[in-house]
């Protein structure tokens, strides 16, 4: 009983926003239970014309690139050696881990036979993009979990696992980037099979490459938004100097994306392109507002150095990516005689998943050292083949700010 009372009093102390997020998550859980009681047909607006609805379009196809920050930043910091960005890595890993866990939950809700999800590991079909993505999401969620274990071990002062984790850090970073490259692009491969269904504006053989490059751009933008939000609402220090470095990389990746996009459209696709005014509008919104405008903004020093403008540009990229994924997976495949829109329950579940992401991020940030990461205070005296540590004070380490834990 005391434990319950402790938790209750802890919750009572939360900010109203966290309580509101908890409410949304609760509603989402109830809505997803209804899906199992009444069936997919009764609770969603999916049907034989629209076998994939909001849950695939947002919870999987959009949420995966939104969680791409972890692998992008990991590669930038550890492989390309831009070490000063290190403080941004942990929040990005937490976001990625939460994102992928919620993708898995969304995918399971959408499956007709979720209890058979493990069949993917038993009956391999290497010709299936869905097989590839399932394997990668499973593998990558594991990698992110291992990376996420570091702050957990620091919190509880577990030194041996910490050293092991530190030892496999580099392999994990490389594995994360390689696995992410595969499944981010394979999400684009999904729609290569919809050859006579997806609209010409979006169907082209380079979809996998486009999905991968846009995921990298978005990953960095999400980090910019997240760090700025943590500064504004969670009392974290302003990381503006670091974000400026990220913003310097962005024009290159965004420029590459726009170039490949235009090439795939004008050279590799066949018309007619502009036969549907709504899709045309959606296409221009996506490309011009979502990619070209932020590209121009990020090339300007005045935008990169200004906290506010930088976040606005980053938000535009995220908008462009979300619209792009919806255009490919939903709008571009619409049947003109029958329009799909998500049902109330579908929407509540997706809102619950988004709220869950925010809620768990805030809670993890509250109880685990994800911002106060000081690699130099951890004892890494086990094999250190990458020579990463330069000898800190052994024996003690700082977990949360101000709290010192004796080493066992």
């Amino acid at each position, binding site marked *: 009983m005391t434990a319950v009372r402790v938790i209750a009093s802890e919750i009572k102390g939360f900010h109203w926003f966290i309580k509101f997020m908890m409410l949304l998550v609760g509603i989402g859980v109830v809505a997803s239970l209804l899906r199992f009681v009444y069936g997919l047909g009764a609770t969603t607006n999916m049907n*034989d014309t629209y076998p994939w609805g909001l849950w695939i379009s947002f919870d999987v196809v959009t949420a995966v690139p939104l969680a791409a920050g972890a692998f992008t930043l990991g590669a930038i910091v550890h492989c390309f050696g831009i070490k000063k960005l290190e403080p941004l890595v942990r929040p990005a890993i937490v976001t990625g881990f939460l994102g992928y866990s919620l993708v898995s939950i969304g995918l399971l809700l959408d499956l007709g036979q979720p209890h*058979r999800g493990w069949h993917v590991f038993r009956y391999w079909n290497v010709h299936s993009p869905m*097989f590839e993505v399932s394997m990668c999401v499973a593998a990558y969620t594991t990698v992110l979990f291992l990376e996420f274990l570091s702050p957990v071990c620091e919190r509880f002062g577990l030194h041996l696992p910490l050293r092991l984790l530190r030892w496999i850090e580099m392999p994990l970073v490389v594995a994360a*980037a390689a696995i992410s*490259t595969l499944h981010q692009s*394979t999400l684009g*491969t999904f729609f290569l099979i919809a*050859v006579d269904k997806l609209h010409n504006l979006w169907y082209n053989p380079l979809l996998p490459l486009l999905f991968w490059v846009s995921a990298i751009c978005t990953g960095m933008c999400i980090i910019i938004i997240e760090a700025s939000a943590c500064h504004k609402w969670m009392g974290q220090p302003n990381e503006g100097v670091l974000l400026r470095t990220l913003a310097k990389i962005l024009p290159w990746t965004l420029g590459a994306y726009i170039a490949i996009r235009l090439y795939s459209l004008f050279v590799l696709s066949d018309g007619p392109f502009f036969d549907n005014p709504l899709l045309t509008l959606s296409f221009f919104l996506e490309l011009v507002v979502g990619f070209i405008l932020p590209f121009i903004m990020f090339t300007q020093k005045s935008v990169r150095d200004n906290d506010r403008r930088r976040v606005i540009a980053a938000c535009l990229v995220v908008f462009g990516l979300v619209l792009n994924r919806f255009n490919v997976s939903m709008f571009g495949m619409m049947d003109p005689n029958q329009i799909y829109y998500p049902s109330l329950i579908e929407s509540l579940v997706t809102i619950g998943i988004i709220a869950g992401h925010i809620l768990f991020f805030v809670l993890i940030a509250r109880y685990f050292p994800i911002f106060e990461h000081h690699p130099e205070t951890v004892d890494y005296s086990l094999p250190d083949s990458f020579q990463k540590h330069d000898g800190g004070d052994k024996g003690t380490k700082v977990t949360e700010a101000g709290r010192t834990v004796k080493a066992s």
Partner: protein
Amino acid sequence: MSNVDTSKNNAFLIDMTKCTGCRGCQVACKQWNQLEAEETEFFSGEGYQNPPAMSEYTFTRIKFRDYQKNGQNEFAFYKEMCMHCNEPACASVCPVGAFQKTEEGPVIYKADRCIGCRFCMIACPFGVPKYEWSKGLPLVKKCTGCHSRIKEGLEPACATACPTAISYGPRDEMIKLAEQRLARYPDRYINKVYGKEEAGGTTVIYLTSLPFDELGFKAVTLRPLPGYTWQALRLVPGIFLSVGGGLSAFSWITHRRERLKREQQALQNEQDSAEPKEEKE
């Protein structure tokens, strides 16, 4: 995907000019597959067709089309069913391989494997697989090509029931038969054997007198669909190794550079601290 020998495939030749629209095939299909009746309304779809679409309860149906010929109202028919492609898109995209192209011709569905992801429904160019939307834990439903009957030497239920339009036999013979009819009665048919090349070739083949698109046939690529995704997926191992290897090499170089720098600095520091000693001597 084409590791199944399709040369001995059986095929349906459906001559729509001979179809009377009796819908005996629809009834036979329901009976053999023990499918529940659907509560429908007449004219709920376009024209006289009923039920309005294929569904979890209806694996085949006759589509009606009204048109005018010499000032007279006429009907044209089109039997909708699984096309049993030679290289089926559904089989290639299924993560658990629940669809299988059999040597006898039909593409069969292994319900005990299915996880219910509905990728087959996205992939199928003909919109054939249907879902049990009414159930809590739904599965996919589609025409079985009466695989169980064929294995016992029988013809599929719909082909057995059809009094006029459906011929069933080895695919190459059916194509030959279709081309003979086209040659003998060029004014009766549109000069095309639908299914000979569509989606890389199917084992349901149509002849009609009306343009195919007017009858409601979908425009379908002639290239086998699995190739569209495989052209990207075949690169997966290579990309995995080159990204993994490339990044490993890159990080080895950056880490080595850092280590050398650190060592040099240490050396420098040593020298710096050593120098004042020399002065003392």
